């Protein structure tokens, strides 16, 4: 975990209100696990909290990493206005538990399900999986065609089978990622997912009785991002304890925490 000024190498719009930012700096060296995130200080003294954003890709050769973010409020709007050459204070990589991409074996049935801006960390995960020779199926859900991103990037990865779902059918097929999941004849060996809480809950329920090793990446409003403020806790499934999403997650095994 480092705190560093990273340089914006590129910042481009890749879908409606959705941007991909490439960052460079020595901190990139420390990135090794999909699912971990960066805690980004947004320009402007009036915004005192950093923004947690998943790492979407890393290129160790070039010393760069990418994040993909959607303009939701003041912070992400300001990120969208950053230009190449700007500096951003970044703390990361954060999170001690990412997607266990080193566990699936080639030949395992590996399914990744991403919804909206939950897609980026799954791209990083897919890159790592295919690097290890694991084939993956990916279901990407978006509201509408204008919101779709990274579908082609996934397609270009070797051994990656991509299904795009849109609510209105304007790209890929009409329906939700849950519809696509339900059409599968059997449960996957591995299931990695990131997206809205409701989607994750449905996925977990869906896989309840299966042999699936399932993992979900969670979001919560954060203060410190490192485990010191108790802002981002969630209860464990036994009700007896809790996890900090920023430190103990942000990825949790099915049933580890209450969704």
């Amino acid at each position, binding site marked *: 975990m480092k705190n560093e000024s990273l340089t914006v190498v590129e910042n481009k719009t890749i879908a409606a209100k959705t941007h991909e930012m490439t960052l460079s700096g020595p901190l990139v060296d420390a990135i090794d696990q999909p699912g971990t995130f960066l805690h980004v200080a947004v320009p402007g*003294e009036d915004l005192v*909290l950093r923004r947690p954003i998943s790492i979407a890709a890393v290129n160790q050769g070039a010393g760069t990493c990418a994040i993909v973010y959607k303009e939701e409020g003041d*912070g992400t709007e300001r990120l969208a206005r950053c230009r190449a050459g700007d500096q951003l204070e970044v703390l990361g990589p954060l999170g001690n538990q990412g997607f266990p991409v080193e566990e699936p074996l080639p030949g395992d049935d590996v399914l990744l399900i991403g919804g909206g801006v939950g897609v980026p960390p799954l791209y990083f995960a897919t890159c790592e999986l295919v690097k290890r020779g694991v084939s993956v199926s990916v279901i990407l859900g978006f509201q509408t065609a204008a919101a779709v991103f990274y579908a082609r990037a996934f397609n270009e990865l070797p051994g990656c089978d991509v299904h795009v779902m849109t609510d209105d059918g304007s790209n890929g097929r009409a329906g939700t990622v849950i519809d696509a999941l339900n059409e599968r004849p059997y449960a996957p060996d591995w299931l990695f997912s990131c997206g809205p809480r409701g989607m994750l809950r449905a996925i977990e329920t869906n896989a309840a009785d299966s042999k699936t090793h399932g993992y979900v990446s969670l979001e919560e*409003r954060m203060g*410190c991002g490192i485990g010191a*403020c108790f802002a*981002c806790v969630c*209860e464990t499934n036994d009700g007896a304890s809790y996890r900090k999403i920023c430190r103990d997650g942000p990825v949790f095994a099915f049933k580890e925490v209450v969704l």
Partner: protein
Amino acid sequence: METDPRLYVTLPGLPMKNPVMPASGCFAFGREYAELFDLEELGAVAIKGTTGEARIGNPTPRVAETPSGMLNAIGLQNPGAQAVRDEELPFLANYDVPVLANVSGSTPEEYVVVVQTLNDAPNVGAFELNISCPNVKEGGIQFGTDPDAAAALTEAVKRVSTKPVYVKLSPNVTDVTAIARAVEAAGANGLTLINTLLGMRIDAGTGKPVLANEKGGLSGPAVKPIALRMIHDVRQGTKLPIIGMGGVQSAEDVIEFLVAGADVVAVGTANFSNPFVCPTIIRELPEWLDKLDVAHIGALRWQGEKI
């Protein structure tokens, strides 16, 4: 790190290398920040508010951003006094830095139990009674708004405490100096202020409060002028040492607080903006002393023409 002797301050129970400590609740029990810098750089460490039993805290979202500030409604989540005694304080004992143990409770008895449990932890230099947490129904705020209740609580704790006792004052009152006088008379060894101001945010898009708890405590630079005013006012009426806080994020802010009447400062929210803020401030303080040409930080106090 070399320590500048001009920065040393000795407060009851807290021999500090410099006048800067992280504020309670913004630094947990030090483990996370210890991965980032050497905790011995700090003047002291104020630990997370500790209650008699473990508390699970409030539902999430627990934080919300506001202009130059934030709201929190953590709800005093903590592992309880015994676990703090057995698992957290020993970790901090690895560092040569005094601990200010922040104590919370729903009843005077609970405060007493916490103090009794932590009394013999060797690295606890002093207690800080959080009589001002706005975020739990029974988080002590009733003690913070009534001088008599505050005094009674202070007395009860003083009776059992083997360490100096600081009382942390709430800014959500008409007259903070009345509470200060009451706890001073009851035997407090020091004051800390300010805790957070009760606030609220609405999400205009959904028409609902942003925090699950609806209301939360406002902290950060936004509250700095209120903190300075309260510290200034309290300073006029007491000789007790004051640990000042509320929006400190730079060495310049520290100077403002010391001039206004604080003896040392605590840094809360700014740790989230920049996790290295405390060591950074500490490193920048000597330059300010050079610039202001003072021999010791204790000399910064403004005497106040009008007082």
